[in-house]
């Protein structure tokens, strides 16, 4: 059995029950290394099971009819022709009894906003009107096309600024302005009076889609009154089980959600899709399992989006680079329903650079558009687009290097929390200074400036960032089981959407127990076999789950030591676990698999719960990004040549997962800055960007494949693993960093995203 364990390795000290474990040493054996993912094989061999890979006996296929208008009343739905079509088993719509089995649930940001399933008033192009179940997908789509709907088409508004004007069509009865949120500290007027330079500018960032590779859908199967649903989600418990059971009136115990694999997430799967209700309702009506796999086109109205921002920024700065005041106001929209249009809209202004006087105002407006969902650092990249371009503009106005000016305003405590708690670690200065050094900032800027006269010009830019969360967000309750053969199984509810959760947790167990990772099995993301936890969002999964799993492993070691103490007739405090055995200070030893307690019980179980963030302190991740671009002055094509991302995110657990998050965040940020934009038809209010040609996400040719990552480790010990999250921070700076580089190359300040040749004609 020794082969399951690394031989001759000393393991982290086992604390006595009730005592806190010591932090791991700076250099660890497994944690932080470049280990291949534990689920690499499934993902490269075709073995991974996404919901669309599941076929059940007797399974039918569902399809959804969607409203073709931006704003319309559904007067009548005639399903008679559709019902007579070959292979059709069920047609449901707002008037069907099945639809009444659904109780509207709230949105992710607003429990009071009720999401209707097949609403009689459709408020955006793409809202579901009816659904079909048939023998084949093609038959289902045929039947969907045969449903006749009479609409009373109403005036619409799809632009959030237009929507605020008097006389604009009303999206909601109460009016189009949902709410204005405010945050204030210090004395804004005083701040501007103290400034040597005050600048003001308007910025706009377009709406970005999550564009998950796997569109919404799932396979629903009823066993009596128990539902099993296979979907792609960021949280089988929250949001999926919680919202689906509420919507369908099921006890939690009879609502099983399974999501071993999810084709993307990016925040778009922190809330349920309406298809998650439609498949179970069709399955109930037909008495057969039902699969719905929605189309790429449907995924644009249905798959979530990050709200567009219309921002006004006024900033004051002293000659020495010290910021004195921020005034930031933005008009956003979360679509036709209250769904977080201004969620976290102002976080970088509140708390990235030191600034004593701040006023922020965020207005959320209803338009006839699909609901927004949190997307990778909600509102942070958009806010940074304006703020970080403004930082460069200010630096130029006072004749200071952009890096130098930022370094003049470094915080060590949270400015927007009562009592100004200190950060557990503040790596922002190192991210900026060490990042600039590693990038060769000054030299690159100088070299780029020599290309100022040519047709192809180079520019170098940077941007910093932080993020609201990336700390412990309970609950999670891992259960670790040591079997009699020495193998280990972890049961935990968290998702692994390709984020590396399973690999990171395997590494934590291997670090603590000395077991080789290939003998660990991680059972996850199944409400039937794992324990309730929060959604994998807010960059919480690694900071929350790694200390809990470490604690579960420690509990196994504590039990092993107690059991071995009896076998070896010594005190447990004389024992340590090392290399697959328990060894006493006097030289006695017993193999883990020979410990009689384990042999008798055949299993040792370690259960732990998520802890808490340290009281009176603020856990926060920081980053700074640097890039070099090339701009063709004739075509205004922008190519990002070089990129460096410096991050302080605490201890890195899974190296490949960490780098993948950085590459992914940067890529999506470059997309936001250079190519991605939702477009509505102004004549009809229809969504025009419903495919990957019209909605352009980056390809391999649009990002620098030699991206560099600089790890800033400040030895944060806020938890027993010291790991902050890194899913969202890398999305914050890229668009602004690229915009600053483009300005450096061209002298043109692109205040509106995406930066593309079309803007020059405008």
């Amino acid at each position, binding site marked *: 059995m020794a082969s399951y364990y690394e031989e001759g390795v000393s393991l982290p000290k086992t604390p006595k029950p009730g005592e806190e474990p010591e932090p791991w040493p700076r250099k660890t054996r497994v944690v932080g290394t470049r280990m291949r993912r534990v689920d690499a094989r499934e993902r*490269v061999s075709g073995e991974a099971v996404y919901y669309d890979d599941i076929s059940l006996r007797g399974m039918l296929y569902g399809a959804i009819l969607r409203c073709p208008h931006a704003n319309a009343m559904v007067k009548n739905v005639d399903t008679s022709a559709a019902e007579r079509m070959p292979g059709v088993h069920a047609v449901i719509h707002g008037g069907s009894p099945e639809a009444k089995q659904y109780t509207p649930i709230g949105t992710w940001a607003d429990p009071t906003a009720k999401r209707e399933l097949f609403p009689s008033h459709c408020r955006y192009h793409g809202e579901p009107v009816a659904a079909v179940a048939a023998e084949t997908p093609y038959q289902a789509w045929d039947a969907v096309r045969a449903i006749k709907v009479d609409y009373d088409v109403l005036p619409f508004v799809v632009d959030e600024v237009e929507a605020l004007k008097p006389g604009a069509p009303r999206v909601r009865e109460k009016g189009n302005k949902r709410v204005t949120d405010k945050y204030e500290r210090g004395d804004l007027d005083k701040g501007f009076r103290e400034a040597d330079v005050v600048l003001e500018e308007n910025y706009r960032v377009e709406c970005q889609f999550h564009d998950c*590779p796997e569109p919404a859908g799932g396979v629903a199967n009823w066993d009596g009154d128990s539902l099993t649903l296979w979907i792609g989600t960021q949280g089988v418990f929250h949001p999926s089980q919680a919202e689906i059971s509420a919507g369908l009136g099921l006890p939690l115990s009879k609502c099983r959600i399974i999501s071993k694999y999810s084709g993307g997430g990016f925040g778009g799967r922190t809330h349920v899709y309406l298809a998650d209700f439609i498949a179970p309702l069709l399955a109930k009506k037909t008495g057969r399992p039902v699969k719905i796999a929605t189309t*790429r086109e449907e995924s644009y109205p249905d798959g979530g989006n990050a709200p567009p921002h219309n921002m006004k920024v006024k900033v004051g700065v002293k000659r020495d680079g010290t910021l004195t005041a921020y005034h930031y106001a933005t008009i956003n929209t979360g679509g036709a329903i209250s769904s977080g249009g201004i969620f976290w809209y102002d976080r970088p202004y509140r708390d990235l650079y030191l600034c004593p006087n701040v006023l922020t105002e965020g207005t959320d407006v209803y338009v006839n558009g699909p609901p927004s969902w949190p997307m990778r650092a909600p509102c942070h990249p958009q806010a940074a687009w304006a703020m970080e371009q403004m930082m460069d503009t200010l630096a130029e106005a006072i004749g200071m290097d952009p890096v130098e000016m930022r370094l003049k305003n470094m915080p060590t405590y949270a400015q927007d929390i009562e009592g100004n708690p200190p950060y557990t670690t503040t790596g922002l200065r190192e991210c900026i200074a060490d990042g600039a050094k590693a990038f060769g900032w000054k030299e690159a800027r100088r070299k780029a400036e020599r290309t100022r006269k040519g047709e192809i010009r180079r520019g170098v830019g940077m941007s910093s960032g932080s993020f609201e969360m990336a700390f412990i967000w309970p609950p999670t309750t891992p259960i670790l089981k040591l079997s009699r053969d020495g193998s280990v199984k972890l049961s935990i509810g968290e998702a692994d*959407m390709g984020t590396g959760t399973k690999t990171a947790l395997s590494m934590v167990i291997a670090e603590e127990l000395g077991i080789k990772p290939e003998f660990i099995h991680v059972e996850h993301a199944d409400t039937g076999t794992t324990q309730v936890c929060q959604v994998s969002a807010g960059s919480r999964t690694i900071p929350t789950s790694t200390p809990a799993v470490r604690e579960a492993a420690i509990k196994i070691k504590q039990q092993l030591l107690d059991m071995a103490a009896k076998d070896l007739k010594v005190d447990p405090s004389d024992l340590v676990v090392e290399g697959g055995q328990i060894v006493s200070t006097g030289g006695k030893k017993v193999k883990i698999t020979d410990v009689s307690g384990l042999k008798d019980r055949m299993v040792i179980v370690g259960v732990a719960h998520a802890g808490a963030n340290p009281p009176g302190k603020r856990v926060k991740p920081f980053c700074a990004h640097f890039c070099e671009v090339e701009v063709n002055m004739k075509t205004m094509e922008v190519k990002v040549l070089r990129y460096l991302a410096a991050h302080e995110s605490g201890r890195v657990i899974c190296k490949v997962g960490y780098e993948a998050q950085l590459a992914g965040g940067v890529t999506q940020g470059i997309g936001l800055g250079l190519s991605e934009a939702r477009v509505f038809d102004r004549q009809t209010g229809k969504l025009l960007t419903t495919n990957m040609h019209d909605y352009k996400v980056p390809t391999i040719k649009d990002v620098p*494949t030699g991206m560099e990552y600089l790890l800033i480790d400040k030895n944060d010990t806020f938890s027993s693993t010291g790991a902050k999250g890194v899913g969202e921070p890398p999305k914050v700076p890229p668009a602004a960093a690229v915009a600053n580089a483009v300005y450096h190359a061209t002298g043109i300040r692109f205040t509106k995203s995406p930066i593309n040749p079309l803007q020059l004609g405008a």
Partner: protein
Amino acid sequence: MKKDRKEQKGKVQKGITRRGFLTTVGVGAVGVAASSTLLGQKAKAEEVREAKELTKLTLVVNGRRRRVLAEPRWTLLYVLEGCGRGECGYCTVLIDDVPRYACMTLAVEAEGAKITTVEGLMKGEELGPVQDAFAEEDGFQCGFCTPGQIMAAEGLLRANPNPTSEEILEGMSGNICRCGSYPQIFKAVKRAAALK
């Protein structure tokens, strides 16, 4: 046709992994009336088929002959999720060693050709060299686009065993990775070229 329908039902309902996707009928695809020459093979002119009539087809998938039934309008691999319209590249397979979007290919075009999917790169239970390179360089995140990425790389390397960096970028540019693992994918293709 009645008998065929029954067979189809039985087959369609089995199997749960992407591994088996081409063994089911749900994947068939088939041609329209006549004239595709995409693969250099003219469909027979007399084979005019009704759009919704189930049709027998023989596809050679990963070296094995598969008799399938499909409506003529079905595209190849429609059960494999993707955009269905030649944008994302998730459904990329090799047809006679050339990477193609399965969603843009009709089965009648593929009949008789050698179709290779990501499962066809496995050497028994072992990963093939391109798969192993993707695993080693972490050339994936959610994994949804990965079979298509790997087939694009495989096709590139079959045609060009020593691609330059530019050729790799060109060869992989028809496959979107929304997770943004392009740096890792690029390294994986480089490693695969060295391994093969």
